[in-house]
């Protein structure tokens, strides 16, 4: 293969020396792949375990340029790994499989793979995989918008020429597309050296993602444009392009989650009401809540399983959104409280508990809760969330967290709530705990969240079984939430200051929330026509991932929320309750829960609930 030397003659002789991470559980294939790659003069690292691969990637984001992974692996599904890598590290991933089914290939693409190779893999195909790295770099550069200035002393003229051309092209495109060119200046990531053709990749850390999600929530999913998000996030060296591409990924996630959520919605129907679960939820710290809330094990399981951990991001937002929305104004006030006085920690923690399981199962269950909360809160919470002065930008979440708590008490089976609450809670707690980390958790927990995710999953099963006392095992909630869930239960009552919990939940919550939302919708129907009331979903709305949340109660009665709600792109919408009478019903139950929760928490939750009533 002809190795084009783009760039300076320095150590960067791309594509020679491109660092590839190869993952395949089949030793024969792995050896072959490794040898082939070395023959292409790449720098190869091989592993047969997906978990090891993730760990390596997380340890040092800049250690690899490209990942090649088998689809069929025993310890983790290749697509899951793909999503994790795409979200956390934003590296190009190539899928490899002996099965070339169109459906599988399509799945790979939708999960973000930049290529799909068939076994037996041939050296000719591997010789060109470096193009994916270049392409991504160019895209990043484009986004950052600083490519157009000619780099001085670039190595090869060709390289420079390319860069310049690209830059100009980008610039043109940007001018056409964007109204602001300011962001370009913010592109601090740009690598001055064009020859390297590698600009520092923007790493979407948990913290950053949290801000991102908060900003999106604040703006509303419809109005979430990169420019405004960027402004809200107020992060140095972040360009509009970075945000734009991240937003795009986010939306993809939400969409994906919503599909799953749809399925979940059906299951949600099976969710029973569990007042006690509610209470328990509170104690669970969000993670646990999920579990308790979800009356139906099957729901949990189903939801849980169907939810890909990767959906965390999306989920996080949505559930949070739910929570936030549902909270009636009182809730919002609370939020304010939280921020100011910090006592809301209870709320936050409560919220957290709700959200425990972004997992599908949880989500569904949690949904009702959130929906209820919405009702109670009359979307004020939504507004609040944004307003929450939380220290971090993720105001949105903290607020929702509180709200969620309030709601969750009401719902018996809000796995969804749990989920959302997680995200919310995380935020809330962050507020109190002054740990923005919670928020960031929502964003994406790099490493932790994800790893937790896997751990959580098994836990979720347990949770489901132990509905009653699932103390934070809300594993189903979100894989990531696994950690959170675990930690959540204990701290449920106590203001959660530990971010880790939050973060986990957030991440997971994003995914499950979607499903949860849907389920919630259904649950809600059952429990209270909360759905009807939940007009506040809009809180979640902005979040793209809220799709599932957008459970609509078209019908006045408490029929199960249709999964159609899920259709809504990430917009959790609660229809305004058609029947006023519904509210009272719900409120009653909510109140009970709320009071129960209040007792546990110290009444912050009850606050929101009460006020709504």
């Amino acid at each position, binding site marked *: 293969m002809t190795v084009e030397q783009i760039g300076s003659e320095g150590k960067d002789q791309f594509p020679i020396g491109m660092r590839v991470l190869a993952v395949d*559980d*089949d*030793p*024969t*294939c792995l*050896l*072959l792949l490794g*040898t*082939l790659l070395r*023959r292409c003069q790449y720098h190869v690292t091989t592993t047969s375990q997906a978990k090891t691969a993730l760990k390596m990637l997380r340890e040092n984001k800049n250690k690899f340029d490209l990942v090649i992974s*088998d689809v*069929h692996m*025993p310890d983790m599904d290749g697509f899951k790994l793909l999503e994790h890598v795409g979200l956390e590290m934003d590296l190009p991933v190539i899928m490899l*499989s*002996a*099965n070339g089914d169109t459906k599988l290939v399509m799945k790979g693409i939708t999960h973000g793979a930049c290529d799909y190779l068939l*076994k*037996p*893999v*041939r*050296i000719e195909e591997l010789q060109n995989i470096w193009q994916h790295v270049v392409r991504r770099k160019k895209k990043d550069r484009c986004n950052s918008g600083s490519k157009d200035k000619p780099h001085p002393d670039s190595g090869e003229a060709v390289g420079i020429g390319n860069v310049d051309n690209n830059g100009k092209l980008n610039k043109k495109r940007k001018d056409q597309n964007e109204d602001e060119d300011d962001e370009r200046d913010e592109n601090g990531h740009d690598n001055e050296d064009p020859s390297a053709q590698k600009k520092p990749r923007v790493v979407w850390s948990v913290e950053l993602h949290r801000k991102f999600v908060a900003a999106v929530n604040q703006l509303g999913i419809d109005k979430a444009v990169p420019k405004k998000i960027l402004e809200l996030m107020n992060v140095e060296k972040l360009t509009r392009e970075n945000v734009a591409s991240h937003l795009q990924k986010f939306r993809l996630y939400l969409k994906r989650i919503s599909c799953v959520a749809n399925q979940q919605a059906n299951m949600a129907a099976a969710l029973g009401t569990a007042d006690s679960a509610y209470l328990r939820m509170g104690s669970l710290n969000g993670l646990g809540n999920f579990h308790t809330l979800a009356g139906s094990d099957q729901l949990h399981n189903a939801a849980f399983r169907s939810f890909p951990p990767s959906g965390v991001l999306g989920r996080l937002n949505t559930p949070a959104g739910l929570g936030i929305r549902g909270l009636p104004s009182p809730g919002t006030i609370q939020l304010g409280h939280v921020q100011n006085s910090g006592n809301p920690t209870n709320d936050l923690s409560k919220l957290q508990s709700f959200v425990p399981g972004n997992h599908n199962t949880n989500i569904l269950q949690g949904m009702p809760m959130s929906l209820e909360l919405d009702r109670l809160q009359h979307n004020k919470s939504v507004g609040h969330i944004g307003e929450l002065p939380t220290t971090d930008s993720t105001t949105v979440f903290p607020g929702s967290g509180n709200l969620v708590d309030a709601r969750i008490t009401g719902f018996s089976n809000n796995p969804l709530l749990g989920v959302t609450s997680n995200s919310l809670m995380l935020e809330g707690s962050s507020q109190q705990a002054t740990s923005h980390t919670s928020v960031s958790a929502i964003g994406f927990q790099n490493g932790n969240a994800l790893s937790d995710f896997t751990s959580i999953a098994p836990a979720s099963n347990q949770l489901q079984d132990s509905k009653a006392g699932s103390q934070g095992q809300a594993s189903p909630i979100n894989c990531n939430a696994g950690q959170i869930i675990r930690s959540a239960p204990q701290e449920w009552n106590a203001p959660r200051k530990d971010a880790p919990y939050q973060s986990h939940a957030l991440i997971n919550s994003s995914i499950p929330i979607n499903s949860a939302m849907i389920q919630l919708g259904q649950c809600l129907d059952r429990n209270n026509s909360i759905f009807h009331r939940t007009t506040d979903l809009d809180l979640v709305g902005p979040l793209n991932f809220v799709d599932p949340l957008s459970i609509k109660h078209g019908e006045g009665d408490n029929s199960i929320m249709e999964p159609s709600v899920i259709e809504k792109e990430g917009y959790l919408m609660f229809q305004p309750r058609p029947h006023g009478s519904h509210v009272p019903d719900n409120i009653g139950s909510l109140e009970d829960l709320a009071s129960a929760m209040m007792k546990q928490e110290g009444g912050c939750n009850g606050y929101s609930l009460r006020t709504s009533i």
Partner: protein
Amino acid sequence: MDVVNQLQRQFIDYSASLHREGFLDDQFTQLQKLQDDNSPDFVVEVASLFFEDCEKLINNMARALEQQQGVDFRQVDASVHQLKGSSSSIGAMRVKDVCVAFRSFCEAQNREGCLRCLQQVTHEYSLLKNKLQTLFRQILAAGGSIPVVE
């Protein structure tokens, strides 16, 4: 010298016959090309790995198919899938073909069919193993490095 040439010839001929008979396909040639000074035993290494893996997978499948209470076809399918992948990677064409048929039986949850395929796979695998071992012996006899066939 003459002997070496003869042996090399032998190897080439034998290798060609294996190709003709369908035991090996193009992929195996690729493997051979990959061998160089940096990895002089590459082909042997890969083949050994394959044999190990193959035996493990066959055992898994046998055990799964023996279950009286109910065969877990998904597990069998997973093993077959992996075997298909590794056999195609090494160029074991006949083994791979059996795997393809095997998979459809798995999907149809046809235990009898699966058992038959399992037998076939085992058979093909043993054949291939013998032939490759012969081939490798020849390679060693021919001077220790596998000459490129084509």
